[in-house]
């Protein structure tokens, strides 16, 4: 009944190769966009913005970035936390060095700087593969965090070693600093997420994405049919670094307001984003959203159920959360290696036939 192609005749190549070729899907997409931009900003309050919406939007960008690298190009990275830190510190330096420039451009530039750093750390991927590379990216994680803690130029020689986001405005409305409104920060992040998702989606279904997937499926074979592994791998690192840098900048400037490299961008962050794309679905943009939403909501839901409903101590709930996350990773890898995105695809297939099974 839903997702039917019947009666939807394409008359041009442009129509045929659009992102959402099925009419129902396309309208659903417009509705989601409409609700996200037009309805939620009016309903939002501080609790929901800080507990769910902002982290969801920001982690979604990071997950899209990592998904391009790991899901599409097959290069497992455990350095996401470190690369997010690069975005955050780059954004901070730019914000304080050029206070007159709009923060929008600072965030974009922070993404660009992260892309360069990420590409540099991606160079070993040409020689080493699989989990050798995963461990090599740990070098990036630990080295970058150490660098931001030790070199005081990065935090402008502040006594606490922290970086604090000064107040910056977009169209006269503050989006960073102490006097922000929930809807403004939400919209600011949403704009970045929407642009990132559209760029990522179109990159991955185009020529570049096919090259990445060829490298992922078998790099030697890909090389033989004419994919340049140097360009393909490094471009994946660069694009991934760009998105991760943006998310790091937003995470620091808009969500946290103040950050310290070791606490905010430690190895746990790398694992968290990796878990998001495993649970959400490797090699799927929708999966990045689903995984981010899931892992951001899980602690909130557990806290609601465990602490508020049953009155358990918070540390027990935190331990149970570890168990649940670990178990879910294993269950997803065993039962559904393509994650929530695959469940969604299956559901769509079912809905297409429903209510007539044939």
């Amino acid at each position, binding site marked *: 009944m839903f997702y039917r192609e019947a009666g939807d005749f394409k008359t041009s190549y442009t129509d045929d190769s659009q992102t959402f070729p099925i009419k129902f899907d396309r309208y659903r997409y417009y509705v989601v966009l409409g609700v996200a931009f037009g309805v939620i900003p009016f309903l939002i309050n501080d609790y929901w913005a800080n507990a769910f919406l902002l982290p969801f939007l920001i982690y979604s960008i990071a997950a899209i970035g990592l998904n391009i690298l790991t899901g599409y190009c097959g290069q*497992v990275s455990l350095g996401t936390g470190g690369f997010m830190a690069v975005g955050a510190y780059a954004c901070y330096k730019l914000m304080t060095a050029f206070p007159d420039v709009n923060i929008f451009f600072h965030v974009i530039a922070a993404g660009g700087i992260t892309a360069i750093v990420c590409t540099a750390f991606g*160079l*070993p991927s040409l*020689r*080493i*593969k*699989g*989990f*050798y590379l*995963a*461990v*090599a990216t*740990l*070098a990036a994680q*630990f*080295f970058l*965090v*150490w660098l931001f*803690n*030790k*070199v005081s130029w990065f935090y402008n020689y502040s006594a606490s070693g922290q970086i604090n986001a000064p107040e910056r405005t977009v169209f006269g409305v503050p989006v960073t600093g102490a006097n922000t409104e929930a809807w403004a920060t939400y919209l600011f992040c949403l704009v970045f997420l929407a642009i990132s998702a559209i760029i990522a989606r179109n990159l991955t279904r185009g020529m570049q994405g096919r090259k990445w997937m060829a490298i992922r499926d*078998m790099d*030697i*074979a890909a090389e*033989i049919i004419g994919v340049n592994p140097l360009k393909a791998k490094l471009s994946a690192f660069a694009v991934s670094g760009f998105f991760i840098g943006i998310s790091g900048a937003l995470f620091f400037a808009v969500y946290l307001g103040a950050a310290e490299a070791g606490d905010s961008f430690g*190895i746990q962050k790398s*694992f968290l984003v*990796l878990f998001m794309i*495993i649970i959400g679905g490797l090699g799927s943009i929708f999966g990045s959203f689903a995984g981010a939403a899931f892992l951001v909501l899980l602690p909130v839901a557990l806290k609601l159920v465990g602490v508020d409903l049953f009155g*358990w*101590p918070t*540390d*027990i709930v935190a*331990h*149970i*959360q*570890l*168990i*649940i*996350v*670990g*178990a*879910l*990773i*294993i269950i997803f*890898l*065993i039962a559904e*290696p393509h994650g929530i995105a695959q469940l969604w695809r299956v559901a769509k297939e079912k809905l297409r036939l429903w209510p007539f099974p044939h």
Partner: protein
Amino acid sequence: MPEQLVFAMEVFLNGLMAGVLYALVALGFVLIFKASGIFNYAQGVMALFSAMTLVGIMKGQVPFAHVINAIFGTDVHYFGWTVPALLAIMLTIAVMVLFAWAVQKYIFRHLVGQEPIILFMATIGLAYFLEGVGDLMWNSEIKKLDVGLPQGINEAIDNYTFNIFDYGFFIDNLDIVATVIAALLVGGLVIFSQYSKEGRAMRAVADDHQAALSVGVSLNFIWIMVWSVAGFVALVAGIMWGTKSGVQFSLSLIALKALPVLMLGGFTSIPGAIVGGLIIGVGEKLFEFAIGPMVGGATENWFAYVLALIFLVFRPQGLFGEKIIERV
């Protein structure tokens, strides 16, 4: 003899000792990787879990006491008895064997034939799970572990070096014990894998799953055995590190330290794990000693990784690893 050189020698010796402890953790990785191709990220958490279990059993802690108290409103914490160290170690080994069996039955039997990277990510999930279970079972406070190993400065070495250099070296007794135990463990493992029937079967599985299966080796049994042995190695590492710095969460991070050791030594080589551990241990201590003060210290956090990274670019299979041959 110049003073700096004497200091450097002391740092070198301490680095060797630290390297032995890294090698001990790396050994557990190599065993599992050789036999099943699984890169077991959970090795560090296994060390933590086994050390926690050991302390819990020795002190007579009630498992899951915290949860029981929270649900039923009771207030139980201890059984009220203490268990001697040796018996507690035996019981902990039994727990680790049980764990090995469960891991094999519920997780990795369902993942046979998957890509290595999927298996790797599954072990990350396992690490989180096990950490949660450990915390829930024995609570997450920092615990003191004392199984009667000697600790503190070694007087003999201190006096001996003082007579030669006018400066006594600080070498911890525990580090010396750890070195001896690690040497015994490696010797034992080599003898086990070379001369026993099970060890031979284990090497056969490591060589070729299919061929081993076809000559009647039970893969299931070998894998459970390998995980049990890895659990035992984790327990030894857990006792050493736990005695040194207390049983706490940071214990599980030694797994991260063992990774560069493995990359340096090669994933498939037991001697590689030992040599890699020593190189990393000595390298990071000497680097911190020589370069650390110039760049603000705490270089131990990343030196091992960067060393391994640079090394891998020139020799991707590590020092002793098998040559990587790729086919389409």
